């Protein structure tokens, strides 16, 4: 066959392969979800959510774990977002381009790939031991913040880089200062990319278990933490612990907890995407 036909064939073949891969991915996801829901749906009810963990599977609930997860997320957001965006802004807009700054850029990108358990060890050394916060929610939140900081910084930088320089030029030419330009032109334009980065990083944080174990999250916390310095637990930890227990009831409980966790994740992402779209539309 001639070139034209060959190309057409390759085109069609590639399209087929792409579709199959996508379907495969979706299929696996569907199977996973189906299995989880099948296992755990019976126990998803208000009781489950509001009960404390217990040695008996029928009575075990995720109250502590949920509170822990939500508190942790809140604190992480408070710590990581301002610092991450601020650092990204500074590095991209204010820092002079030099060998040092290039080095910094590479290293921050590397940090995003460091295994999370290393962050756990870091958190253990600094927050738990050195600062003496102990195995508390505060330590956990700070550790998670460190973990997701590189992601937010890189996302912020990329989003800012994507703002056309012509817009900044226009702002300067009208007599705006650097900060005014950043505030009124650059940040609004890059908000989409920044929020996407935040979504990605929080989604990762919410599922982290290993670093939190190292820092001191407990598997069995039969009371609700009241202060920042209290011991805590999180949903992934609770799930992990229950799956290691022999009783069948715990397996179901774990399934239910996973459903809840997925629910929270989807909700969080949903809110973030909604916010992002809302801000984007305001600009258009």
């Amino acid at each position, binding site marked *: 066959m001639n070139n034209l036909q060959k190309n057409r064939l390759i085109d069609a073949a590639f399209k087929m392969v792409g579709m199959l891969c996508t379907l495969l991915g979706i299929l696996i996801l569907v199977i996973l979800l189906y299995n989880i829901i099948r296992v755990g749906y019976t126990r998803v009810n208000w009781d489950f959510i509001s009960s404390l963990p217990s040695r008996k599977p029928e009575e075990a609930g995720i109250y502590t774990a949920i509170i822990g997860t939500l508190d942790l997320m809140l604190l992480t957001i408070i710590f990581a977002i301002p610092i991450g965006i601020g650092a990204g802004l500074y590095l991209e807009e204010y820092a002079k*381009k030099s060998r040092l700054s290039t080095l910094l850029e590479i290293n921050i990108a590397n940090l995003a790939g460091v295994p999370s358990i290393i962050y756990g060890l870091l958190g253990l050394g600094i927050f738990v031991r050195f600062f003496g916060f102990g195995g508390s929610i505060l330590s956990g939140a700070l550790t998670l913040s460190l973990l997701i900081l590189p992601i937010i910084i890189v996302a912020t930088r990329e989003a800012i880089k994507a703002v*056309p320089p*012509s*817009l900044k*030029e*226009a*702002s*300067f*030419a*009208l*007599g*705006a*200062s650097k900060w*005014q330009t950043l505030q*009124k*032109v650059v940040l*609004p*334009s890059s908000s989409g990319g920044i929020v996407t980065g935040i979504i990605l990083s929080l989604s990762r944080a919410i599922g982290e278990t290993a670093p939190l174990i190292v820092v001191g999250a407990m598997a069995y916390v039969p009371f609700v933490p009241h202060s920042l310095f209290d011991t805590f637990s999180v949903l992934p930890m609770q799930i992990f612990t229950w799956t290691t227990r022999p009783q069948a009831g715990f397996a179901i409980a774990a399934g239910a907890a996973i459903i809840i966790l997925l629910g929270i994740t989807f909700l969080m992402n949903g809110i973030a995407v909604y916010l992002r779209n809302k801000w984007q539309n305001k*600009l*258009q």
Partner: protein
Amino acid sequence: MAKQIAITMETIIEQSLPMDEIVDKSLKKTHTIEVNGAKVWYGDFMAIKGIDMMIKPNTVTSFIGPSGCGKSTFLRLFNRMNDYVDGFRMEGKIKVNGRNIYKDKVHVEELRKEIGMVFQKPNPFPKSIFENVAYGLKIQGIKDKKLINDRVEKALRQADLWEDVKDNLKKSALALSGGQQQRLCIARTLAVEPSIILMDEPTSALDPISTSKIEDLIFELKEKYTIVIVTHNMQQASRISDYTAFFYLGNLIEFDKTKNIFTNPKQQQTENYITGRFG
């Protein structure tokens, strides 16, 4: 002798006026640009090799020359937009409305209220039409809503865009056509009420009809403003400018009334360029 006196007087005046005060309003409307011995380097590369020039008020001056001759660089000296380029360095004196703008104490933000700039590719902010035109005013901290509304309308009228957009100022600026966007950018500049407007190839990205509208606009604006325009289009230069400056490789080859440049230029290089023998 007269020159000596002039130079001495200039020195005395410069030394007696404190440089860090806000622009003297009375100087604002003399709107001239005076350049003495301007030289520019980007790192090791010398982009402008020593230029003197005097731009008169209420004139349109066009800068022509082949690519890379330094005309855009020279234009951007006037509102210090080159400051953002790595490795930029300049020597010489540039006086805008009587003030040396490269003295340390001059704030660029103040300078850019005197001198506005319109760019080659229309670059409206991704905001509404109103917000775009009001941007320069809000930057200055102006909060009076009535004042802002009035200035926005005035600027849009001056830019010949008011009729097109008056019914929906909240519409996104990006929904306008290319020619309209450029006129919006001009309105945005006019709202700040500068005395001098710089234009860097303002119509090269536009179709002939939009170009023609903007050229008409420039002609109207001449009454109130001093305009300097960089252009690749020699017919445009000959159509709309009073004075023309021909640049080549960082030097100013010739600066004269446009009609002289295009009927009988003094330098052979100028003639070679405008007759298309090179360039």
